[in-house]
């Protein structure tokens, strides 16, 4: 059993804790256990959740020009895909340098 010793007074916590700090922890950290109710938080548009902290909806956000997630690989499958495409192209280029003639110029 743990007997907690004295802790300093809380900093920026309790009722007033920054919602972003709380969500960051309860949604992104902590032990992941598949319960009987199968919800994968990653399926929930985390992005939607985060965005709704300040704006009404994703559409609204886009309207306002808030689109940072689109280039963030952690948040956008499209960005991930773009990144892969870029990486593939770079690798192909490199291969061509090393061994010209054996690497097709374009992916099918």
């Amino acid at each position: 059993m743990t007997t907690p010793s004295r802790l300093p007074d809380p900093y920026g916590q309790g009722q007033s804790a920054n919602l972003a700090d709380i969500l960051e922890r309860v949604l992104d950290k902590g032990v992941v256990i598949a319960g009987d109710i199968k919800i994968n938080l990653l399926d929930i548009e985390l992005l939607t959740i985060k965005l709704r902290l300040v704006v009404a909806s994703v559409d609204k956000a886009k309207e306002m020009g808030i689109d940072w997630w689109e280039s963030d690989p952690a948040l956008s499958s499209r960005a991930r895909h773009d990144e892969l495409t870029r990486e593939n192209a770079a690798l192909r280029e490199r291969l061509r340098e090393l061994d010209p003639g054996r690497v097709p110029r374009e992916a099918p």
Partner: protein
Amino acid sequence: MTGLRYVYAVCRPFGAALQSQLAGVAGDPPRLLPHGDLVAVVSHVPQADFAEEALRAHLEDLDWLTATARAHQQVVDALTAVTTPLPLRLATVFRDDSGVRVMLEEREAAFRRTLDRLDGRVEWGVKVYVEADPAQQAEPERPAASAPAAPKPVSGRDYLRQRRRQTRANDDLWSRAEEFATGLHTRLSDRADGARLHAPQNPRLSGAAGRNVLNAAYLVARDASEEFVEMVDRTKDDAPGIRVELTGPWAAYSFAGEGEGEGS
């Protein structure tokens, strides 16, 4: 019984009483569900809100999510006051007590390992922000129309000179911030039993002023916490234009993953 079981955390058995007026998610005060050497902390939650479909819909509702996240955190927080909880991710739900028991049994070894690793420790969050210096507000992405009243460049050379000055000042602040954050992180890591770097928070979401350049979590022994906090406090006035923010003590959310090694 129609209620589902919402699990907040897994702990070792503890003697102290939980804070009495804890509401818990859905307003059901948390109960202890002991099984063997472990205790699951659970609330009874209505099927209507926590069955799959309903839950998925609720999670998209910011008000619901906010209330649930705060309730979850409050319970974990109350546990942190009396023991070392292993916090579970939001919305871990089982059909009934026996489902929870089966889970405890299946993962017993891993839980014990992790609880041993975290025992007597808490998490502190440290963020470093670069505060925008009003003199340097003319950031590149700012539309020209809202640029401050810097003297209008009369020639191309003037313009370039002005730009260079501005860039240099910005670069200077950034490199100072980077150096500061790296140094702080190194010093704090030395005092901690573990450290994690998280993605910087988007200022639009956190509502915090300035730009978040360091968002770190440190695993610190309870009895070393006071010293740790003082150490952070001391750095607060060190660097003009740079702000340090401390949060905690949190349960060891950032260190609860089972993949976490000992030596990290």
